[in-house]
């Protein structure tokens, strides 16, 4: 619906094209986002239990907790989950490959990515099982798809000692060229292989934590001198 004047003006001031419809299904807010909000919001920090020293406000256009430049942080859910086969092994008997899909169409062309962290949760085939000797190896690569740049970058390989904690992989400079703008859709091919004979694990959840900086919203700290 067309917004009344002041609401439309405020939305535009917030850099939003239109008022989002809200979460289609109520879902919990990821703890990392709550934590970043509480650390980032000066009014929260002023009123919250972890009071910063009076007069200090967070550095503009900087995400302290993640240590990068940024004024927009997105927690993007995997669109590929519903289509993912539940099998634990591929037809060839090796561990399956998964494709995860992230919709980044909301990222504006002026936004520069400063951090793209893949967050994965795996589940052992048998809950509580010890896992293979030597752990696992995760490989992350751009997946083939329309307009994809698959194949150009070598896959990112990561040693994963245990599946009990979430597995995090930094994509910038690996599966995502550091100075490239955000693609409309990011498709990744994942594989998790045990380093010694063991049953395969299952990908339970995938998300992308994307930090971008929109320079148009960053004010110079020092007023221009005339």
């Amino acid at each position, binding site marked *: 619906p067309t917004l009344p004047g*002041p*609401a439309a003006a*405020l939305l535009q*001031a*917030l*850099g939003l094209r*239109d*008022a*989002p*419809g*809200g*979460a*289609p299904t109520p*879902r919990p*807010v*990821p703890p990392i*986002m*709550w934590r*970043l*909000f509480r650390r*980032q*919001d*000066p*009014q*929260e920090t002023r009123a919250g239990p972890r009071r910063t020293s009076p007069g200090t*406000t*967070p550095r*503009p*256009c900087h995400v302290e907790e993640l240590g990068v430049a940024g*004024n*927009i*942080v*997105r*927690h*993007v*859910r995997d669109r590929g989950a519903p289509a993912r086969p539940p099998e634990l092994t591929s037809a060839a008997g090796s561990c399956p490959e998964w494709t995860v899909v992230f*919709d980044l*169409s*909301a990222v504006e062309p002026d936004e520069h990515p400063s951090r793209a962290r893949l967050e994965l949760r795996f589940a052992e085939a048998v809950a509580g099982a010890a896992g293979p000797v030597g752990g696992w190896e995760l490989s992350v690569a751009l997946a083939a798809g329309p307009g994809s740049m698959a194949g150009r970058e070598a896959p990112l390989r990561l040693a994963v000692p245990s599946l009990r904690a979430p597995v995090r992989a930094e994509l910038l400079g690996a599966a995502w060229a550091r100075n490239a703008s955000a693609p409309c859709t990011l498709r990744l091919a994942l594989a998790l292989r045990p380093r010694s004979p063991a049953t395969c694990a299952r990908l339970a959840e995938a998300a992308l934590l994307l930090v971008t900086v929109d320079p148009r*919203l*960053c*004010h110079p700290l020092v007023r221009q001198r005339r």
Partner: protein
Amino acid sequence: EVAPVAGGGPCRARRLYVSFREVGWHHWIIAPRGFMANYCQGPCALPAALGASGSPTFNHAALRALMYSAAPGAHGGLPCCVPARLSPISVLFFDNSDNVVLRHYEDMVVDECGCR
């Protein structure tokens, strides 16, 4: 919500709370529910224009107030009471793609007013 202006007084920040529920955004904004935006109000005649209430003084505003007191109506009137120091807020919300987004906005809260 605007606190009633008690007794007017010179140029200074007045409390103004912006409620996201008021504009019907509470179903997609996760936090905060609103924020103290505040606003500036009050005449900038002497001595307010000289920063009487501790607000920052702007030389040009002081000059205009002095000229106005000498010859009211002979030139552009008194200086204006405007924000002199602002601070940012952060907003956590669901976007149209069901992602959770945290955006940081500079200059959203008036901390201090001054005559300009």
